[in-house]
């Protein structure tokens, strides 16, 4: 299956919030394995270095053992941190289906602290602009859910 043969569209989750601490402090919480374990999940084999591969253990589904495979793709101290987030199995649908996504944190110093923006991108669906219009009920549901998820705070 070639990317060029299929027309893809991707959807993303966006969350944004202001944390009342300087970027250095927030950055440390994001990129220390010990601290990551306290707010996200305990990573295995994690180092904040581009190319580093690490895993998280999550809830299994079907033939998928629940392992999230990650690879650090970008480290710009105090500014930007991104890693691939992959898992799932082709035999599953819904939760546990194949997943090849990207998690990106962007930090911006603002009055009173740090604006942290999370973009979890790469949720794939076949692209067809007419399909979006014609799958009215389903897509209203999807878009409604996304609007809720993307609701910005702070």
């Amino acid at each position: 299956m070639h990317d060029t043969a299929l027309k893809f569209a991707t959807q993303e989750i966006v969350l944004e919030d202001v944390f009342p601490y300087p970027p250095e402090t927030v950055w440390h919480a994001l990129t220390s394995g010990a601290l990551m374990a306290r707010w996200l999940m305990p990573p295995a084999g994690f180092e904040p270095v581009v190319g580093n591969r690490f895993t998280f253990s999550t809830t299994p589904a079907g033939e998928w053992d629940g392992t999230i495979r990650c690879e650090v793709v970008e480290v710009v101290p105090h500014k930007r941190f991104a890693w691939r987030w992959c898992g799932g199995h082709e035999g599953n649908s819904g939760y546990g289906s194949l997943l090849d996504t990207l998690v990106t944190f962007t930090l911006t110093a603002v009055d009173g602290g740090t604006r942290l923006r999370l973009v979890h991108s790469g949720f794939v669906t076949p692209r067809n602009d007419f399909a979006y219009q014609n799958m009215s009920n389903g897509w209203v549901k999807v878009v409604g859910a996304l609007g809720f998820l993307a609701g910005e705070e702070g």
Partner: protein
Amino acid sequence: MRALADPTRRSIFERITDAGEISVADLTRESSVTQSAISQHLKTLRQAGLVAERPEGRKVFYRASPDGLEPLVDWMTHYGVFWRERFLNLHALLKDIDDA
């Protein structure tokens, strides 16, 4: 989305979504593929939850169905909730560190 990996099947799916709703006869008329081949492709699309059928008299109409896109919705719903919770954890952690 294996059901859409086949180019013929994908083009049938796109024609269904373009048309809104279309009969097998109309799909066949505008295609170089035989009606039995089209029926096979429709069966695959239906099993994947990408199209739904509606019989009317002797005709069967097909329309696109969003059910096949639920994997997207399920993962996104899951991680949407997940990340919101984790942001709250991060707030609590930073406060803990600050208080320490």
